[in-house]
């Protein structure tokens, strides 16, 4: 099975074979799915060395020279180290570079805090013009690759190495809309992205089979068509946001802002990372942190159960 990254780069290779003039620029990072690209198109694969600031500047210049540019770096460094370049070049000047970063959230937690992009959603959300994308299935990643040819704005794509499923059909993915829905609105609307989409769809299926209306929103793009999103989530009684990102600035934070802006009142529970006293002083990995932060599937199931139970109890009280 292919990961979202490999699905993306296989498509880039195919597009290049067909004559599309795409450059890949990296700060010393490879991938099995890039081996063919490097072999057959060595002049289109540019390494700037481990120099993320220059990575973004050079890519901006290449794009301004007329090239289609895909940047591929190891997260969070292209974001956190080169944020000023992203801010002043890609975002402000709307330079249509596709910035891909390997590993989203806690993917590389075993390498420690340095290798965890867990603030990047909030950082990128503050910028103009740039779209942050979290492919939640390999088909979506493939479709994101095809957009390299025509996209006229900068994009930041987060690859989660644990995602290998195909959940969607091509027609279900609307980049202009920015999200997909699954299930039916009712007692709970769960909003998440990337890694959590597949396991939470399974949880949603279980509730739907029991006749409980519950909806999942895969917020694969930020920003989204906000009014359309509000139209969806206001049909549910409660909202649950789930993310492998610190809570400030994350998707939960985004939803609270939207509700406030549209003057919608709904109870919102946010599940995400909290490090009030800094990072752990033990060796960790994704499972460890998910368990500690109550972001493991069991904890998420429990949270969903409690929220649905509360919704039923509230209804009984009202009656």
């Amino acid at each position, binding site marked *: 099975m292919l990961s979202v990254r490999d699905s993306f780069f296989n498509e880039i290779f195919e597009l290049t074979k067909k004559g599309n003039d795409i450059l890949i620029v990296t700060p010393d990072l490879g991938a099995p799915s890039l081996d063919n690209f490097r072999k057959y198109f060595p002049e289109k694969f540019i390494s700037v*060395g481990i*120099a993320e600031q220059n990575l973004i*500047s*050079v890519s901006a210049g290449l794009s*301004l020279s*007329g090239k289609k540019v895909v940047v591929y770096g190891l997260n969070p460094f292209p974001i956190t180290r080169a944020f000023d*370049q992203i801010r002043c*070049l890609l975002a402000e000047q709307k330079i249509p570079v596709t910035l891909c970063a390997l590993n989203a959230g806690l993917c590389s937690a075993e390498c420690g805090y340095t290798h965890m992009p867990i603030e990047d959603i909030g950082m990128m959300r503050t910028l103009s013009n740039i779209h942050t994308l979290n492919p939640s299935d390999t088909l979506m990643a493939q479709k994101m690759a095809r957009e390299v040819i025509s996209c006229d704005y900068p994009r930041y794509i987060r690859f989660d190495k644990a995602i290998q499923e195909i959940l969607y059909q091509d027609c279900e993915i609307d980049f202009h809309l920015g999200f997909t829905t699954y299930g039916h609105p009712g007692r709970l609307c769960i909003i998440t992205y990337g890694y959590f989409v597949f396991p939470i769809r399974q949880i949603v299926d279980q509730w739907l089979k029991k006749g409980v209306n519950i909806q999942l929103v895969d917020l694969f793009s930020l920003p989204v068509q906000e009014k359309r999103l509000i139209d969806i989530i206001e049909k549910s009684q409660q909202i649950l946001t789930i993310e492998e990102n610190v809570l400030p600035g994350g998707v939960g934070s985004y939803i609270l802002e939207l509700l406030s802006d549209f003057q919608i009142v709904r109870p919102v529970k946010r599940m995400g990372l909290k490090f009030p006293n800094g990072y752990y002083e033990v060796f960790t990995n994704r499972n460890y942190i998910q368990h500690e932060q109550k972001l493991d599937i069991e904890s998420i199931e429990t949270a969903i159960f409690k929220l649905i139970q509360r919704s039923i109890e509230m209804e009984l009280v009202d009656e």
Partner: protein
Amino acid sequence: MKYGIKELEYKAYQYRKRFLELFTRLGFGHLTSAFSWAEIATVLYHEILDFAPSGQENIMFDKMVVSKGHGAGILFPIFEDFGFFTKEEMEGALQIGGSSKKIKQIYYPGFDFYGGSLGIGLGVACGLAKGAKLQSNPWKVYCLVGDAECYEGSIWEAAQFAGHQPLDNLIVIVDRNHLGCSDFTEHMLKLEPFVDKWISHNWNCQVIDGHDIKQIYQALMQAKHGQNSCPHCIIANTKKGQGLNYLIDQPLMHGYVPSGRDIERAYRCLIGIAEECT
């Protein structure tokens, strides 16, 4: 040369004078940084850069990246002189609430890059130069960086990249005025041996007097037509605030624009009334 040395010197003087008019009216600007490269800009735009006279973008023309964005103010009088802006358009744009729409719509070499966050322009210039090579385009990329900007690590990331590629279509002019914002560079944090640093990154490097029109022209022509397969660095020794003697070698004048009675003093100094220049 299209113009004589005296003519270009006079143009540089006129650009400084017009800068004074525009930016004292605005009440904000970086006069010392702009005046520091006035002769360099004059030679670049009148003798060296190949760009569309109508200001229309064309991928085949030379590129200019003003990485030390605070020095970009001197380009307004130059583009006005070229007829890209009328006097009214220029003055209309350079005021609070003035529209930058025309600046953004039309291609002006040097204005298509939004400089100011120091250290990021040289990398962009590298990307433009690499892009030109990949497309076998003949245009050159020129980049102005400040000497104190070279404290930024990203300058040396870009310098390594350009030297490795090698980008022999890239010409960097370092405005070596020996002043940062608060202090002299060699007092604050030594940049020397500056030439050696560029050469060690596989660059060709020349040192010139950055206010001498002839030296600027010769260095830029040599770099433009150089055949040594290296990117080119011209370290132009300049004076920050050149043209206004009372500012020369004065730290803490980075964001200076004369105001009040100082405006008249600046004009009198610029036009060479000796007693005002000390």
